[in-house]
């Protein structure tokens, strides 16, 4: 499970395309974190993952930027 079917491997984008990809990445993380935070108010087990998601978002952004474009 995960992403639906993909035919080919991705290429490494540069410039504006990289920026757009990065924006999508951060937005998706932020939306997932928001969803988990809201869910954790009513579904206790989600409390176990919210703190991890914050750390993971920080590490992912840091890693993606350090690896840079192309």
């Amino acid at each position, binding site marked *: *499970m*995960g*992403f*639906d*079917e*993909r*035919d*080919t*491997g*991705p*290429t*490494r*984008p540069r410039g504006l395309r*990289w920026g757009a*990809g*990065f924006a*999508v*990445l951060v937005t*998706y*993380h932020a939306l*997932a974190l928001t*969803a988990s935070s809201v869910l954790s108010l009513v579904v206790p*087990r*989600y409390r*176990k*993952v919210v*703190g*991890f998601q914050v*750390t*993971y978002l920080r590490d*992912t952004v840091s*890693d*993606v930027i350090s*690896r840079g474009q192309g």
Partner: protein
Amino acid sequence: MSQDVALMFSGGLDSTYAAVTLLERHSKVHLLTYTNGYGHYAVGRVRRRLRELERRFPGRFVLQVISIRDLFDELLVDRLAQEYRTWRSGFIWCLGCKLAMHARSVLYCRENGVKQMTDGSSADTDEMVEQMPVSVALVRALYARWGVAFSTPVYDIPRSEKRSLLDGLGFFRGLPLGDRAFFIQPRCIPGELYYLPFVLLGQTPRHDEETVACFIRDKGARLDAWLTTRLGARPEPELEVKLGVR
């Protein structure tokens, strides 16, 4: 026709192709779909795929949708922060989930007298941690310790061949968009988050063979203990693990 076989099933191209081709050698295929309770959604898509399969091959499939939440919690989520500090990569979520699925499949096979387990792992997507050759080999060893044979029958089949067969049978292809097709199989938000830098930016995922092997061996011991409790039996001693997908 030989005995029943079980297949880990998402309804995507690989597992649907595997389901169809396993019918050549097995009279019945048990399709096993798992949810872990954290961001798995659109699981109903597997039922749509089952209906497609049933129309073409009536009476040959059994679908089980099974929750692995408790096992996944026990294996990983209850100590998530600590595990992340140890392994330092998000692969632990995907691989922990998949290992829980495999252990639950061992239990299913043992309880239902199924001797052969399969999945739709593919060389085309071996950037995915659970489909790396080392992962497949160590997972096969887990099954072997419990007397179940595990194989990946479509690993080396090109996607074009899989698509050709399913198109010929008239299966739903999803919505094509760029090099992707959507709305085919269930989604996993945490898994998508982990692979997003790869998909969007072409950055290879943060897992290497050695770390992955250590993680599987570490969790394998816990899974053996879980299965021992459930089955009231003990695993067979592990023979030398031959790395590779077959």
